[in-house]
């Protein structure tokens, strides 16, 4: 089996898939802790459906570069969702549910009415559940992903203390003179970027898993924000690494395999947390 693995690792597309997969897992887990604590666990799901809707519009319009349409639409939705989270008539979870289901329905509708593709069900399925696209990445896409990841990680480290403050107690942070609106905006934009990137890896429906599982697993075991964040990042990268390896060896779908590994890791963390807690 190890020999088989070594043979596979000699192919550049496998190495690309591993690099991109691990980077996306790292980025999504960093902000996962904040999102889970802010009660926005489902934002990954909602935004990825928005991105799906935008993609279907892009497909119908025959855009050469869909990202130019998908990225702005997703960023705007993220900003609206996170901004209205606090004092609105439609609360966070309901707003996400609305946008998520609405965008999904419109996306499918548009694709259905205008699609020129013969294999509609296949197209929809691959954008929702993740395709084999991670195995067909071009070198420029890998570079794009590396650059984006470096920016995301740098932003997270640089604003770590602010993000902590805004997550723990927005009112206090605001009263103490921190521009919380600005940081919420920053968080929203970064999350939207991560989600659009991550759609290439696991597809819309499984992005939430990448965002919440590492964070929830880490919260079972650790007691300080810093440790939870660091551990969730490490765990997420490891899960992505083994998930991709297993999927290659066993021939299973990449996205679902990674999520399955994440679920298993969560179960282990729950058990460890219970034992340590007692």
């Amino acid at each position, binding site marked *: 089996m190890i020999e088989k693995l070594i043979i596979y690792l000699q192919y550049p597309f496998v190495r690309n898939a591993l690099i991109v997969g691990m980077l996306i897992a790292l980025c999504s887990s960093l902000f996962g802790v904040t999102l889970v*604590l*802010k*009660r926005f666990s489902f934002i990954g799901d909602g935004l990825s459906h928005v991105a799906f809707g935008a993609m279907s519009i892009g497909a119908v319009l025959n855009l050469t570069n869909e990202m130019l349409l998908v990225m702005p639409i997703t960023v705007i939705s993220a900003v609206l969702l996170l901004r209205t989270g606090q004092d609105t008539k439609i609360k966070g979870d309901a707003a996400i549910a609305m946008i998520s289901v609405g965008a999904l329905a419109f996306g499918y509708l548009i694709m259905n009415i205008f699609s020129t593709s013969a294999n509609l069900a296949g197209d929809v399925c691959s954008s929702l559940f993740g395709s084999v696209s991670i195995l067909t990445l071009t070198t420029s896409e890998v570079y794009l992903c590396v650059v984006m990841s470096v920016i995301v990680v740098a932003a997270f*480290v*640089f*604003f*770590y*203390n*602010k993000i*902590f*403050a805004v*997550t*723990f*107690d927005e*009112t*206090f*942070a*605001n*009263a*103490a*003179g*921190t521009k919380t609106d600005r940081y919420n905006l920053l968080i929203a934009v970064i999350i939207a970027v991560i989600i659009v990137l991550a759609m290439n890896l696991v597809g819309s429906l499984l992005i939430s898993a990448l965002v919440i599982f590492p964070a929830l697993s*880490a*919260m079972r075991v*650790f*007691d*300080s*924000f*810093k440790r*939870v964040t660091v551990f969730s990042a490490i765990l997420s990268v490891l899960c992505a690494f083994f998930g991709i390896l297993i999927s290659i060896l066993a021939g299973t779908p990449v996205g679902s395999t990674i999520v399955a590994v994440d679920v298993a890791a969560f179960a282990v963390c729950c058990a460890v947390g219970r034992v340590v807690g007692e």
Partner: protein
Amino acid sequence: MTLLCAQQLSVGYDSRSVVGNLNFTVNEGDYLCIVGENGSGKTTLMRTLLRLHEPVSGKIIIGGGLKRNEIGYLPQQTVVQKDFPASVREIVVSGCQGRCGLRPFYNKEEKRLAEENMERMHISSLADRCYRDLSGGQQQRVLLARALCATRKILLLDEPVTGLDPMAAAEMYDLVSELNKEGITIIMISHDIVAAVRYATHILHIGSKVFFGTKEEYLESDAGKVFASDDEDNGSAVSGEAGVDSGEVSAVSGKVSDSGRDSMDKNAPRQREGDSEGEGTR
């Protein structure tokens, strides 16, 4: 020296006024209690003082060289905080962020300030514990230490004893009153009129009747009489207990009673004292 002065102030949401025509001043070293029924606009007023809301009309004048990032605030606890995975030290030091500006990390002096304030609140031994594992009283002390990191001059507290058992509430009042003696100006929202009258130097009563003055004036005023008697009639049955208890402990001399038993024992006779005082004002 005047720190804060409200003139013809009217506060509310979305330019709809909840309570209006407020005039009051807070001087250095004052202990102001804001009392009033639920929904009378106490929290809105405090958020306006903190500049989280714009006033609907009127103005707030800030004096004494007080900067916006020198105000310590103890908000009501949110649901999110109940299961937040963060150590006590992380939370306390986050009170320093107002000083940081764009600087991403805390410097040595800020870390030292956090240690100092944990010491002050007697929570140094809890520094590495997780916030969600602490008792309600300990959590409030953590948040108070955090507020102290933000200020040397003025603290705004929004119902700091809500949800605490009588002993923890008494400790909380004692801590706040000690801070006041050290020269920190206190503005506190309270449901607990007995404690308010015990500790505060000034009372601001908002609602259908608005009153501002020293607590002695308050006890003579119409608003004070109505509210104080209300509190005795039905308030004590519901939530008055915690308030009465805590109020009494400090009334003795302001000294902290270290043992819980001690303070509990003192409660019964003092409660009667409080009642008779209420009678007198009527």
